[in-house]
């Protein structure tokens, strides 16, 4: 799970499947928005970071893979269109927005360092002395805390459960003191901020969106076709069962000519794509009885039709 400071909520709990995301991103661009968009899906989490209207970073993280830039945007669009996601938009200060980029994309200076083996205070001092920009991620089994730096100065502290950046390091330190606590140090190089491209300028956002919309449409059609095929198959089975039952009864009472009469009258059933129901069989029974009169008496025919009606009732209700 990606833990980020919430900042100032702009929109929360929006279904991204019901939003035209290219339009929304364009509005954020024109409004010189700084902050990030967080997309939560069953498949993973997507983060779009804006700095002064520029989409400087995008990430899509699943348990198995991390996608960045255009791939992340495309995947976020893809998941959004499924309609079961959640979108939250938070405004942040420009420094923090960049720090979040560092957190998500920064160079890993130290990974999983055991805090019992290193001195956290001297690490913080080193960050300050070396005028690092980036983020310290301190985590134990139960908690996580983030410390954001910009040119060696702490921008603030953030930990799970808090709603905004804090200015005191108390909670972070308490996480650091927890048994088995570890730290990751992520940094960005000094000129990285300037070199960040605006993904909205370099990527055809509308094209990515339209491609995903097309893909989604194709998938939906495929699903509908598959569902329709399944329905057709099931209906075919019902008809076959009903026909087999009629043939058996006709064979028993009228012999092979009875089976032929059943086949003929069953073929003549006009269902027009509607599932076979007992109502459709009224005409079938009448026509069959009329034809059967040429080879059998009314009592035999009545007996045969009773068997057919009883069998058809159980087949058509049971399925």
């Amino acid at each position, binding site marked *: 799970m990606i833990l980020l400071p919430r900042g100032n909520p702009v929109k929360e709990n929006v279904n991204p499947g019901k939003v035209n995301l290219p339009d929304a991103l364009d509005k954020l661009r024109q409004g010189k928005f700084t902050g990030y968009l967080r997309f939560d899906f069953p498949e993973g989490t997507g983060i779009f970071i804006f700095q002064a209207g520029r989409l400087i970073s995008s990430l899509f993280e699943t348990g198995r893979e991390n996608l960045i830039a255009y791939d992340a945007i495309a995947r976020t669009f893809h998941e959004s269109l499924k309609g079961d996601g959640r979108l939250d938009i938070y405004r942040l200060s420009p420094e923090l927005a960049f720090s979040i980029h560092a957190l998500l994309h920064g160079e890993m200076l130290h990974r999983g360092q055991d805090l019992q083996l290193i001195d956290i205070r001297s690490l913080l001092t080193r960050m300050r002395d070396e005028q690092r920009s980036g983020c310290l991620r301190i985590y134990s089994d139960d908690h996580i805390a983030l410390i954001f730096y910009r040119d060696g100065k702490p921008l603030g502290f953030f930990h799970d459960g808090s709603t905004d950046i804090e200015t005191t390091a108390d909670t972070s330190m308490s996480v650091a003191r927890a048994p088995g606590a570890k730290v990751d140090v992520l940094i960005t190089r000094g000129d990285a901020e300037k070199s960040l491209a605006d993904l909205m300028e370099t990527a055809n956002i509308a094209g990515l969106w339209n491609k995903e919309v097309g893909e989604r449409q194709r998938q939906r059609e495929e699903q509908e076709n598959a569902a329709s095929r399944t329905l057709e198959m099931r209906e075919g089975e019902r008809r076959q069962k009903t026909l087999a039952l009629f043939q058996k009864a006709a064979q028993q009472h*009228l*012999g092979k*000519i009875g089976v032929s009469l059943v086949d003929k009258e069953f073929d003549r059933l006009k269902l027009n794509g509607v599932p076979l129901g007992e109502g459709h069989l009224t005409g079938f029974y009448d026509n069959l009885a*009329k034809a059967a009169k*040429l*080879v059998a008496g009314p*009592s*035999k025919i009545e007996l045969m039709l009773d068997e057919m009606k009883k069998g058809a009732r159980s087949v058509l209700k049971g399925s």
Partner: protein
Amino acid sequence: MEQLHLVLAVFWLIAGGVAFYFSIGNARVWTSIAVGFFLILLGEIIPGALPFLPGLDNPYVLTMGHIIGTIAILVMSHGFQEYYVFTRTLDFEGSKLFVYLSVVGVIIASMVFLLINPAPGEDVRRIIRVVENTNWVFLSLINIDLIRKIYLNIQETPISKGFIAFMVVFACIFLWKGSQLYIDVYDLENKKDLINYTISYYTNLGGNLLASISVGATFLYLAKLLR
């Protein structure tokens, strides 16, 4: 001999009545067949039982008997053909009323034909009788084969054994009409001392009696099967 003719007339009356009643109460496909057998009653009663009825010497009545006999075998053969077509294609069409009206129409047309022509003499009647019996003989054989095929197509149905009975009926009719045809072709009426005539005569009577009994019995049997 008159008593025998009376017995024959009674049997044909029963057979014809049963056949006609059967044609009313059953499927359209039986109409032609049953009406055909009913017409035997008219065709046979008229010439056979004339001693008990008025018009004994009327050549038109006697000739109409032969013509109705011819219509009878043609109508019932048509009926069996229809039944055979049904067993092959499962398609059937037409109405009973149309069958009744058609038969009545053909009989009326035949009467008109007779009336607008000179009164039929003995020779004319003999020729018409030969035509009638020829039709009966050859169509009986054809019908036996057709009924055999129908039976094979519907042999598992309740009605199937009724068609075996029809084969027996046509075998009897073949003997009856065949012997009469033989007598007419060889003019055995004028050579009564020949054994051929005697055999043909009794075969004719026996065939007639058996046919009348088998027709009545067959339709009663069919009625039982079609209950």
